[in-house]
Structure formats: structure tokens, C-alpha cells
């Protein structure tokens, strides 16, 4: 290494890392609930992007809180890559059925089948979600689209407003964002435009896990330690499955792992972990020296500005 700065020498331990207190979690919860109510009051056709990942699950939990005892006044939309963890799909369907929600599914597979999209050379599909997402927004005339994105996830997301205007092509223009002052969220838009809304903007990964623990929110089982056949690629543990197979020189072994994020199985890595409860995950996340995306997302490593480029095109 030529640079003079070393990575954090001393591992951060759980003992010295403050967990979020109840007061801070309550403040975050109230801020998010405020955002849900603003959207319900000011938009005609809002939708919640729901992948079955932890952030969208927390988002749905907060939406339920915002309107209790009435049901959530929003449809759910899942942009399905076809490369799902079966546990996540099962979770999605069970939540929808239990709560009597309406779910729309936009299938990447449909676009591949009729040639509107083509499979990428590397076989991963996170990037292919943009077109089906924008088509679904247009065909359902959704005018507000809730996403579970958090500003602590990634450099480009740190620049995102809570109400983020998209043009008729779904494009994000980071140089021309509306100023967002106090808690006065401006949802005005012209026909064809829509607003992406990020109620979890100010939450960190640690906040999410503290909240999951406090609220006893159920998650797909892959978020907790389990034994799985994996192989190592680019420093990440990828699951052996229908969408990802080891190449020459990559060996498969059974490891005890869990997932920090959930996405396309072929490019979402697992981390070695023995955490089997939310409380144990909190300790693990507090001590982690690697960010959630750094640990588990191969597609963010594609270039210096991979996420920004995707977001400009309309990705969430």
C-alpha cells in the first residue's frame, strides 16, 4: 500500500460501540411514520417496493404503525429477478397473505423471455431490474414509490433526498435536486414524473437491527446463521445454487454463514457468522469492520460510481 493511512487498526468492539438507545430509535421511528403519512395524504397512487429484505420488512412494519388500526393504504411491488432465495419468496408470500396486502410482481424473466432484456455476460440480474421497475411504475401510474434505501449504505445514496423527484424516464439528477428543508417535504410533480420516497434515509444498519430486535420483527431465515455450501469469489462467499456455480479453481465447502443483504443470489455474498438471534446480530454488526455492501454486493464493485450510474437510470 502506498497511502499513508491504515485501515482502523484497533478492531471496534461491541463494548465500545454504542448501540442506539431507545430514545434515538423512537425518534427515527417517528420521523419515518411522519413520511408515510405525508405520502398517504398527498399522493394518488403510492406503492412500497418490497423485496423481502430486512429494510423493506422494517419499512412495511413502520407503514403498518403509521396507519394502525387501519390497514396499510399502499400496494406492494416486488421486482423479481428470478434469482431469489426461496426463503425470501416464501416470507414475501406469507406476509402478503397474513396481512391481506396487495402485491404486484414485475418479473425480469418475462423481459428475458420476449427479448426486451438480455442476460448479462456475468449472469447477474440486479442491474436488470431497472426496466421492469420503470414499466411497472408507468403502467400502474404509481406517483410515489417507497424504497428502503438508507444513506449510510453507499456514497451515491448518501446524496439522496427523502423525497427524490424522478423525471418521466425515471432518471435521478443528483446535480439538480430540490432543496429539502426542515420537515417540509415537497411532493409536487408533473404528470409522468414520480417521487421516490426513502423513509429509512436516516437509519443505519445498526439502527435497523436494534429495531428488529426491539420490535421482534420476523425475518427470512437466511439473515441468521445456518450451514450452507459456499465457494469464495473476489473475497465473498457465494452460495452454490441454480444461479451460481463455482468456476475452475474455486472450491466448495460447507460453512456457517448468514446474509447481511438480500438480492440476486448470484452476486449477493454471505458472511461467516454464528449469530442466530437479532441480539447477536446487533453485536456482530456493531463490531464489523466492513460495510454491509462491501461485504456482500459484487455489483457495487463494478466501478467507482456503479450505484450512481444505476440510480441515474432509474434504479432504486
Amino acid at each position: 500500500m502506498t497511502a499513508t493511512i491504515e485501515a482502523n487498526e484497533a478492531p471496534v468492539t461491541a463494548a465500545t460501540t454504542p448501540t442506539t438507545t431507545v430514545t434515538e430509535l423512537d425518534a427515527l421511528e417517528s420521523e419515518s411514520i411522519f413520511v408515510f403519512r405525508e405520502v398517504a395524504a398527498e399522493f394518488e397512487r403510492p406503492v412500497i417496493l418490497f423485496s423481502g429484505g430486512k429494510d423493506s420488512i422494517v419499512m412495511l412494519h413502520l407503514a403498518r404503525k403509521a396507519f394502525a388500526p387501519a390497514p396499510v393504504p399502499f400496494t406492494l411491488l416486488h421486482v423479481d429477478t428470478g434469482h431469489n432465495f426461496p426463503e425470501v419468496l416464501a416470507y414475501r408470500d406469507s406476509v402478503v397473505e397474513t396481512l391481506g396486502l396487495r402485491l404486484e410482481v414485475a418479473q425480469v424473466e418475462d423481459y428475458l423471455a420476449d427479448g426486451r432484456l438480455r442476460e448479462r455476460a456475468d449472469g447477474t440480474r440486479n442491474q436488470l431490474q431497472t426496466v421492469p421497475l420503470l414499466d411497472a411504475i408507468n403502467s400502474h401510474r404509481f406517483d410515489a414509490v417507497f424504497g428502503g434505501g438508507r444513506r449510510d449504505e453507499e456514497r451515491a445514496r448518501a446524496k439522496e433526498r427523502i423525497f427524490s423527484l424522478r423525471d418521466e424516464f425515471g432518471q435521478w439528477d443528483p446535480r439538480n435536486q430540490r432543496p429539502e428543508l426542515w420537515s417540509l417535504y415537497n411532493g409536487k410533480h408533473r404528470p409522468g414524473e414520480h417521487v421516490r420516497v426513502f423513509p429509512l434515509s436516516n437509519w443505519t444498519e445498526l439502527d435497523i437491527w436494534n429495531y428488529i430486535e426491539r420490535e421482534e420483527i420476523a425475518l427470512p431465515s437466511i439473515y441468521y446463521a445456518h450451514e450452507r455450501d459456499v465457494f469464495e469469489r473476489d473475497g465473498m462467499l457465494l452460495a452454490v445454487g441454480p444461479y451460481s456455480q463455482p468456476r475452475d479453481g474455486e472450491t466448495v465447502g460447507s460453512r456457517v454463514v448468514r446474509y447481511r443483504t438480500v438480492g440476486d443470489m448470484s452476486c449477493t455474498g454471505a458472511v461467516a457468522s454464528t449469530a442466530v438471534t437479532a441480539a447477536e446480530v446487533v453485536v456482530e454488526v456493531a463490531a464489523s469492520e466492513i460495510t454491509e455492501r462491501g461485504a456482500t454486493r459484487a455489483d457495487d464493485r463494478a466501478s467507482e460510481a456503479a450505484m450512481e450510474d444505476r440510480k441515474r437510470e432509474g434504479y432504486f
Partner: protein
Amino acid sequence: MGTTEHTLLRLATAGSVDDGKSTLVGRLLHDCKAILADQIAHVQTVSAARGGDFDFALLTDGLRAEREQGITIDVAYRYFATDKRSFILADCPGHVQYTRNTVTGASTADVVIILVDARHGVLEQTRRHLAVAGLLRVPHVVLAVNKIDLVGYDEAIFQGIAKDVSQLADQLGIADVQAIPVSALIGDNIVEPSASTSWYAGPTLLEFLESASGRSDASAQPLRFPVQYVIRPQTDNEYRDYRGYTGTVASGTVSVGDQVIVLPAGRRTSVAGIDRAVISATTTAVAERPSAVAGEAVTVRLTDDLDVARGSVIVSADSSPGTRRELSATVCWLSDRPLSVGARLLIKHTTTTAQAIVTKISGVLDLTALEFTGLGVIDATGLDLNDIGKVQLKVAAPLAADPYSSNNITGSFLLIDAHDGWTLAAGMIDDEEGELL
């Protein structure tokens, strides 16, 4: 939780281009160990590929254009924590074109850090950012005199700049300014005290941030509860007749049994119940609470069946602000579309959006004299991008408004272009004397 309260502090940075804001933020995050190994590895790789040393600015400047031009274009929000407290940092651009982002960051900040390059001293942008901090009533300002290493750690230069800023702060009514000599590049007085500034006895930047108090307690003020959305499940269960008014308590405390007034109608009633959600994996219900305080999102039920809807504000019966259709306010003009008298706009004030007409522009802030000067006097006919001006508005709906000096939620508003929805201005309602400076 223990006995020490672990509180959240919101801070924003400001300063001119090339004063080193991104470097300061990168250094602060790095020295607080808020940057993780993969993020550091990324910056090392990019810095090395460009043939330079570790570039702290790359930790925060995430957009392509920012990296290409070496400037910050838009506000980025960062999260970090020490043993003492958690921080949300709005890293704001310094370029004059993006002053609106400084206003954005400062609107919720407890502390604004204004950077000054020790070699250049106070610039017009410094004055503008101080004025913004003063207008928005940010409780604390930190003057970070940066690049102190480039002036040989000269105490006289530091004291000279500190004195200039202190005089400006007095004029602007900013009570608390802490000047700190720093070098963001080297790390002097950011987290660790610098051996090169033995003449400086004050806190490091982090020490100051860890001990600064937040905004004054909004719970102590009179009740203001803007109604966001009405909940009427109308389902075939125990909630068939439920009618709740949702919102976040803007100020004060609301308790069951309180006498309240619903504005704008002005009807008196009392609080029948305060609910918060209780949900499980399969059930959705509410539980009653005795009271709720400022910042809490709750649902309020009232004794009488009044016409209450989004835009209504439930206020304390003892201390109602009444309503007004005419406002005197100070606005930060955030758009390159100029404002002139007679303009028709939308005003967004708490949960009300209404039409408004600008009836008068009575002054523009002269950044040199730091006073509002009449139009024409300083070669102005209206408000242009980045101008701070005094305006009068006539509003099509009655607003339950307070002066910004007593309530930053019911005292603030946006002006919006009705045609395309663009946010044109941030407004703060003047108090009786019409003085904000």
C-alpha cells in the same frame, strides 16, 4: 442505557469552495473510526490510481462529477457515533451556486461548522453562511480556521479571523461561536489536540461536538399538533367508529383531557385519547397513552365530532396562535428564477399547501453591511438566486402560524412554483417587531 444520556446531534458544514470541507469531514469520520476497512481500501485504490496521497475528500465526494471536478455538488448525509453521542452530519457544498444546499443542511442543524481558509480570512460566502446560520437560529456555530499549517500555525492570523467573525456574529445575533484552529489535512485539533498550536487552549472539534447542547426543548413550548391524515378504518370490527387524527407533535405536550382549539375553525374541544400502534406479525391495533411530547408521531382523538382534516392544527386552548392570511417573513431565495412583486406561488406551511401572492418585497440583505436595504438602493428589483430578503405574502387560506423565533415548525414554510413544483424559497415568519437579524 446507563445514566448518561446518549443523544443525537445534527450538524452541517459550510464554507467557500476549496476551504477543505470534504477533507475536514473525511478526516473527522476517519479519526472517529467511522470509516470501515472496505471504504478506506476504496479510497486508497482511487487515490493511488491518480498518483496522489490518500485523499480524504474521496470518502465523502461520491458523485462522478464531484470527483472529476474535485468539488462537492450536493448535500451528503453521514452517520457516525462516539462513546458519547451519535451524529448526523450534512456535508454541504460551498460553491455559491449551491447555497441552497447550505440552507437545506442548516435548517435542521444543532451546530453549523463554517470553514475559513486561514490564508484568505472572511469571504463573502463566509458572511452569507453566517447570515444563514443566524436566520435559521442554529444554536451553535463552529468557526474552523482551516489550513492553519499553511500560515505557520500563526496565532495572530487565527485571532484576527476569530475577531472578524465574532463581530459579524454579534451583528447577526448569533450567541455562540467557537473558533478552532485546524488542519483537516494533517488532523490538527480535529479529534486530537495539536502540538503545533500550544497557544490554543480550547476544545478540539470533536470535543466541542460531543459537549454541545441540541436545539432548545420544544416540549416546553405551547402545544402545536398539525394534522397530517385522518384514520377511519370503517372495518367490521372494534374500530368501526374509530376516527383518529394523525400527526407529529410539533411542540409542547398533549395529554388526555387537555382543552384544545382546532384551527383554522377555532372550535374548542378536549383530547379524548392519544393512541400509538401496537402491532404483531399478524395483528394491528392501538394502545392508549396518557400523553405525547414534541417529536412523537401519534394519533389524537377528540371529544367532539368536529370538521378536522389535513391542514387543521390542534393547539393549546391557553396559548393559541390564531390564524393569519398575511405574513411578513424573511426568505432565502433558492432558485435562479427571480421573484418579483405580484408573483403567484404556492406556500407549504406545516400540512397546508395554499396559493399565495407576494404583495411586497421590502428589503434585501446587504452582505457587506449585514442589514436589509430597500430595493433599488442596492441595485435590486426583486430577489435573485441566493438573496435573503424580506417579503409580505397574502395567503388564500388561513394559516396557524407562529414566528420562527418561537417555533421552527409552525414558523417555517416553503414557496413552490405551482407550474412544475420546484422549491423556490425557504421562509421564516418574522416576529412582531419584524426583526430576525
